[in-house]
């Protein structure tokens, strides 16, 4: 006779086998999940690295574009100046003076920096003035003066087509840097705040530097003579507020002049 076996044992054995199957499947699933996770982590890392690399490239390109733009603008300014027998340092000094004036006038750093880059282009219109007039050693006659004075409008016409913020600013500077506060400037005879602040600032920076530099046809003015003229021209040629800023921070202007001397 077969020994009696509790039927529960059979049932438990069946459960055991099912349990084994299930745990086997669970183990397989967990291993698979881990594999998917580690593969996905690895790939994410690669993708992230790749993205970082691309971002760095884009940033470098962006910088390259900005630098190129600055260089082009500066070179254009230098071309304009070389046509009028100015030196490269004149352009640099006018740029610095303009930025100082802009900041104390209340512009933010970004706008002041942009003006620093745009102001050297104020004379770009001179590239279209004939050599015979531009290089004339003595004084201009009325006819020559008239032609010479067209350089502001010529500069405006050259730059006016651009939509770049820097060149748009340069357009204003070129157009208005010979306007006078009292309305007696050119080309449009604008008065007071009708003249854009970019034009008013560049006018002062340009004249200050021109008077203090020697040229083939003239000696550099003594500082006292320049200061006397500036005081007389406060509210005449120049924006009174800018003249006040100039004298208040005179040391900063002289410092720039010393650091960027003509050789």
């Amino acid at each position, binding site marked *: 006779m077969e020994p009696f076996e509790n039927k529960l044992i059979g049932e438990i054995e069946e459960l055991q086998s099912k349990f084994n199957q299930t745990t086997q499947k669970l183990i397989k699933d967990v291993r*698979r999940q881990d594999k998917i996770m580690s593969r*996905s982590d690895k790939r994410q890392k690669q993708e992230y690295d790749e993205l970082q690399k691309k971002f760095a490239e884009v940033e470098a390109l962006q910088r390259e574009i900005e630098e190129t733009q600055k260089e082009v603008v500066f070179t254009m300014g230098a071309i304009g100046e070389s046509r009028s027998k100015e030196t490269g340092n004149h352009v640099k000094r006018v740029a610095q003076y303009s930025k100082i004036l802009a900041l104390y006038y209340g512009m933010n750093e970004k706008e002041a920096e942009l003006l620093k880059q745009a102001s050297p282009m104020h004379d770009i219109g001179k590239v279209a003035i004939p050599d015979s007039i531009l290089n004339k050693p003595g004084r201009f006659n009325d006819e020559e003066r008239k032609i010479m004075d067209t350089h502001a409008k010529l500069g405006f016409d050259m730059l006016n087509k651009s939509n770049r913020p820097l060149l748009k600013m340069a357009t204003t500077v070129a157009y208005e840097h010979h306007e006078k506060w009292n309305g007696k400037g050119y080309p449009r005879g604008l008065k007071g705040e009708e003249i854009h602040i970019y034009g008013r600032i560049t006018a002062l920076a340009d004249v200050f530097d021109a008077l203090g530099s020697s040229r083939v046809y003239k000696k550099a003015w003594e500082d006292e003579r320049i200061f006397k003229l500036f005081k007389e021209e406060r509210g005449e040629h120049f924006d009174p507020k800018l003249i006040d800023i100039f004298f208040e921070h005179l040391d900063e202007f002289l410092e720039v002049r010393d650091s960027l001397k003509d050789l």
Partner: protein
Amino acid sequence: MENLIIDETVYTPRINLDIENGLIELVGKSYPENTFEFYKPMMDWVESYFSGNEQAKTIINFEIIYFNSSSSKLFFDFFDLIEEVTEKGKYVEINWIYDPDNDSALEAGEDFKEDFVKLNFKLVEK
């Protein structure tokens, strides 16, 4: 039972399920927002195809250049299903097609091949 074609989108592959030619084909990228929902019609089709509608020989072409982790999970499930039907005697060939420039596609193919040793799983360079 009818053929099923799902067009490719930016996030999902083109799926071509062809009874007459015994062809199951996935081409493109796979990172749907809801992976299991997206692939449900395909999984249903494959199940009913192998329950008596299949050809003597079935070819599966996977040409997936990029996929997310839930797609990866789904592909494992898919190959589980294929493994089951081959154990029941159906003949299936799988081609994992990859671009030699795409390392991660090749690695993924190797992973699947390694996991499904019983399957006729070939890595095919494009």
